[in-house]
């Protein structure tokens, strides 16, 4: 699914969300939210770290349920745009292998003033991490296979005593 070179996008007025198997384009995402009406532009770039809890990470691999993930991303973007009166918002996530120091997620928001832009950028990221149907496989140096990571604040009705049992090593 994520192996082919692919790009899928959903759009609404001032809103763009996408999934891609290619390297994320920071300047393109910034350009997509620029507007003469916006005095503030905030870009968040999440990149692959070289370690997790003391273990060396060689790369991350993301899989997704693209039609469901895009639906969730669009809904988050619409909620953020309305709540914070944003000028524009773009959210993109890379799928497949993401090498260390490369971006896995970009969120760019623009607004007339800085406060709503900062706030919306942060809230959008937290909502993505909580809800978007994308899964991270961490590959550690020297390991066979990898570990499916679950973001700590997953869906609310997942019992916390069971959440950890979901990290099944291959």
């Amino acid at each position: 699914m994520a192996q082919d070179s692919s790009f899928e996008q959903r759009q609404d007025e001032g809103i763009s969300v996408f999934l891609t198997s290619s390297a994320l384009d920071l300047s393109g995402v910034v350009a997509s939210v620029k507007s003469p009406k916006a005095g503030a532009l905030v870009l968040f770039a999440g990149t692959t770290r070289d370690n997790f809890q003391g273990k060396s990470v060689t790369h991350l691999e993301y899989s997704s349920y693209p039609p469901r993930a895009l639906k969730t991303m669009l809904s988050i973007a619409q909620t953020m745009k309305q709540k914070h009166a944003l000028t524009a918002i773009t959210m993109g996530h890379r799928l497949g292998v993401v090498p260390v120091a490369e971006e896995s997620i970009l969120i760019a928001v623009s607004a007339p003033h800085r406060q709503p832009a900062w706030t919306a950028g942060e809230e959008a990221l937290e909502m993505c991490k909580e809800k978007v149907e994308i899964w991270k496989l961490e590959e550690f140096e020297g390991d066979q296979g990898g570990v499916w990571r679950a973001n700590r604040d997953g869906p609310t009705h997942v019992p916390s005593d069971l959440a950890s049992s979901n990290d099944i090593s291959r």
Partner: protein
Amino acid sequence: MSDPPAQHFTILYFASAATYTQKASERFPAPMTLADLFRRLEKSYPGIGEKVLTSCLCTINLEYVDGNEDALRSIVIKEDDEVAIIPPVSSG
């Protein structure tokens, strides 16, 4: 993905569910209740209920379904439906 054979639905597995079943998807005969589906999965993949499904959500045709016991018994999966097992997510 090609269309499922007549009278079947497709189930998609992601992340830990795909690891446990060693499959990305498979097909089962329709109609079937969600409760029957989960019983069938437990039979095919012993332990999947406790180790995987309890922490997962479920969608039918991209919409989340309620996981309470009554709902599981009353929700019927129909021919050509797309069911997905959604483990706790980890984007970002």
